């Protein structure tokens, strides 16, 4: 019985191989067209700066349960921080830092600025939870964006920011406290490291970008 199964498997493989050959063969005529489309696609992405985060293919959920990519934020200055909502120690201070920056920038900027808080605990921080957190912290207006990604997207994005984090227990992470600024082309231009540090340089940088 086993042998027979094996031979049918071989047979299947053989048929698959033949099919593949036919497919390859029949594709021959269309190959040139396909290459052209791929080239166009490559060119389209090459419009972004080499270091732009708009090249990231990852998708994210916002606190309003909308699906977004970073390239949806083209033309906006982005102020980005990584947090998690069940955090009791550093995050409230990081969030406070973000709000202080937003308050100082608000009156000066005449171009759109988005404040993005990316969760490093995507399992817990569902869109609903992020929404509740936004409301609780009076950050439920359109300049505030909370993002939930997959574990993988989150780690990849942390790597872009050079943010390090590690799950200590299911509800506790240790992480580096970095606020990052991206220009309208999605290129990282400034990082503020540490908690409760003087945010003047950061604010100046955002204003320089958002009020030229």
């Amino acid at each position: 019985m086993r042998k027979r199964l094996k031979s049918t498997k071989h047979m299947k493989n053989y048929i698959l191989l033949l099919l593949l050959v036919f497919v390859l063969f029949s594709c021959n005529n269309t190959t040139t067209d396909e290459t052209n489309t791929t080239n166009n696609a490559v060119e389209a992405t090459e419009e972004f700066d080499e270091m732009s985060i708009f090249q990231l293919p990852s998708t994210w959920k916002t606190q309003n349960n909308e699906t977004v990519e970073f390239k949806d934020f083209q033309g906006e200055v982005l102020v980005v921080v990584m947090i998690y909502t069940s955090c009791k120690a550093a995050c409230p201070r990081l969030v406070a830092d973000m709000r202080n920056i937003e308050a100082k920038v608000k009156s000066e900027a005449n171009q759109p600025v988005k404040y993005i808080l990316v969760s490093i605990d995507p399992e817990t921080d569902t869109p609903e939870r992020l929404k509740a957190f936004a409301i609780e912290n009076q950050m439920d207006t359109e300049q505030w964006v909370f993002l939930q990604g997959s574990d993988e997207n989150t780690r990849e994005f942390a790597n872009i920011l050079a943010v390090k984090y590690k799950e200590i227990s299911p509800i506790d992470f240790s992480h580096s406290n970095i606020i990052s600024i991206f220009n309208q082309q999605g290129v990282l231009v400034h990082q503020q490291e540490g908690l409760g540090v003087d945010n003047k340089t950061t604010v100046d940088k955002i204003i320089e970008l958002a009020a030229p």
Partner: protein
Amino acid sequence: MKFNVLPLVFILLSNITIAQQPTKTVAIKGGKYIPLYGTDSSVVTVKDFHMDIHPVTHQQYLDFVIANPKWKKNKVTRLFADKGYLMDWTSDTTFSNTISNSPVNTVSWYAAKAYCEYVGKRLPTVDEWEYVAMADETKKDARVDSLYNQKILSSYETPKTYLKQVGKTNKNIWGVYDLHGLVWEWTLDFNSVLISGESRKDVDTDRNLFCAGGAVGAKDLMNYAAFMRYAFRGSLKANFCIKNLGFRCVKD
């Protein structure tokens, strides 16, 4: 029709024999161990998985680059790989024959991750990598053996080990080659090591990790080789391409 297809089948089959075989994997039986960083309460559980028996070679990486042109040396995005990417390759698809079977190096974390996904695998976690790497030829945990440590440290001191061929040294008890001695290897969550510059001043949840706190927090001060690896990981950024850093893949 048959007449047309037959030569094609032949070409296809001959291609298959020429193409580089994916690296063989061996089963790793999971278990518990205390990594270098952590207290007695932080025993790490590693689940069963399969690990490549040697690091990915230049030849294997070339197959990936040909199938994924965006990872060509002259096409790659700087966000994902710095200027050192595939530094020793003589063009997008060529390199000296002498390194075909040596571990591919000067590849970024993004590139390593993309390669593993392309072959249906993934990068190992730090815990998985260290779990297998603490074995020697006869023991699953050889960390107490001073010879084991000495051997690794002396390989760290040897220059240009990345030019050596894979699979030529002794395999460990799991049947895995070259975890030590050729290149250091990317791990999926290398960025979970909190001993880089900025984390010294502002990581608040682990107060041991401030200015040289890394050493204080280390579980096993004898394991200086592991300490060096953790420190190295902590200094990396994901788009770095470094001569003595390669990778291998694992799967669940």
